[in-house]
């Protein structure tokens, strides 16, 4: 599913954004990528959906070798993934339904199928009555669920979420976690990046702890890479 072996990522001015990361995430797992702000969580996620390439090391996701992946093959990788961004990336001038439809259309779905699937997704996240609302008319929790609905529209095998509960109340955060659990139960692997210790303690799962670009704790990392 996910395999990173001795992965490092350096930027100009930040030579150890990630340093010697070795992790494994198995199919069907629900795992937190936990660490304080600036620990490298977002960078690690970017490596997983090929928005960035590692400076060194090996990265394999859903059978794709991301170090050798040709740019024109990136869409094929992304179609196996669901991405939930920290800033949600909702289209503010389009309704909830249109936001989902847009993603489906971008994948070349037929018009009839687009509407059907968009409504199914909205129902699945409990937003069927808010289909015609603009994102600005939705609560923070509802916006988050809309972003999740869009991410799972293509039945991804792996869902990557970056701080999805960052701006949410406790109740809304719980709702979001429950939603991710529901998705996980369908067989989708979930990697959820968060700096929220309360969340991790309240709904405990396996976790990879990142600190200053290094893994300090990982449940399934090979023993040789832990030192």
């Amino acid at each position, binding site marked *: 599913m996910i395999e990173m072996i001795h992965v490092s990522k350096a930027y100009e001015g930040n030579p150890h954004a990630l340093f010697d990361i070795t992790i494994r995430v198995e199919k069907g797992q629900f795992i937190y990528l936990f660490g304080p702000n600036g620990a490298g969580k977002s960078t690690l996620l970017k490596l997983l959906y090929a928005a960035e390439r590692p400076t060194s090391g090996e990265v394999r996701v859903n059978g794709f070798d991301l170090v050798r992946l040709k740019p024109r093959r*990136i869409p094929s990788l992304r179609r196996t993934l669901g991405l939930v961004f920290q800033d949600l990336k909702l*289209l503010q001038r389009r309704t909830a339904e249109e936001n989902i439809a847009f993603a489906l259309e971008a994948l070349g779905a037929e018009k009839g199928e687009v509407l059907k699937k968009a409504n199914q997704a909205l129902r699945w996240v409990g937003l069927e009555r808010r289909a015609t609302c603009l994102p600005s008319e939705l609560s923070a929790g509802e916006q988050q669920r809309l972003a999740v609905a869009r991410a799972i529209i293509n039945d991804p095998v792996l869902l990557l979420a970056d701080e999805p509960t960052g701006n949410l109340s406790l109740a809304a955060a719980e709702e979001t976690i429950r939603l991710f659990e529901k998705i996980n139960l369908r067989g989708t692997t979930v990697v959820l990046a968060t700096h929220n210790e309360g969340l991790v303690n309240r709904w405990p799962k396996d976790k990879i702890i990142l600190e200053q670009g290094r893994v300090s704790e990982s449940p399934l990392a090979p023993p040789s890479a832990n030192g």
Partner: protein
Amino acid sequence: MNGSFLRQTWQNLVQNPWLNAITLGTIALSFLVLGLFLVVFLNTKGLLEEWGSRIRVTAYLSGPVDPDQAMRLKEKVQGLEEVREVQYRSKEEALRILEERMPERKEWLRGLPRNPLPASLEVHLKGEYQNSEGVQSLVKKMRGIPGIEDLQYGSDWLEKFSAFMALLKVLGLSLGGLLLLATILVISNTIRLNIFARKEEIEIMRSVGATGFFIRAPFYMEGILQGFLGAVLALAMLYAFFQLFLSRVYEPLKGLLGSFPVQFLTWEQMAAMGLGGVVLGLFGTQVSVGRYLRL
């Protein structure tokens, strides 16, 4: 899938209606100026060719010429490389023509003790020699022929006209080049602004795995559409101007211009302009997509 492309293209166009209208207007204006140059150039060229076909050299023959002598001279001149046709005009014929042209002097002309007009050969040149060099070369050869006293030809105006045509060509090409460059820049700028306006949508498309082709295609279609519509709009305006010229300028001045028919662009030339619009659109889009839409 095609429906989605068209929808995206349409959205790009309506998202910034003013920007797209200005772009279309600029493209149309550029093509209009180019088209005007083309029409003027082609017609002037036609006119020059028409006038060129009227070029002739008149050889006046010395003294009284008997028909046999005249025939021999005619054959000799006819044998020259530059010559298409030679017409012999006897002294009597020359006088008759003059009488026709000056009917009020007819009596006076008839009263002359002897015919003062010389016999002549009217020499018409072959198409490829209907220019100043051709005339000069022919005149040089004819000067050496005994029996020919004087030669009359006029090629100064032709030289000046050729120089004017060359200037028109250079002016048209350089202005045309500049306008085409400006058009490419205007199109690329519009596409760039549309790329920025749709930045979030592009990010989402990328994140869900839309192919590069799917993301880029609407921008290319937009550029092509703008280029093509701009060219068509320019052709429509050009045609309107042409009709206006015909009715306001050409018809009243027809007597001066002679029988030369003014022509609009041919279908092939119009199609080439449309195609030019498409190519410019593609080019303009490529500039911005290559720079701002790296996937």
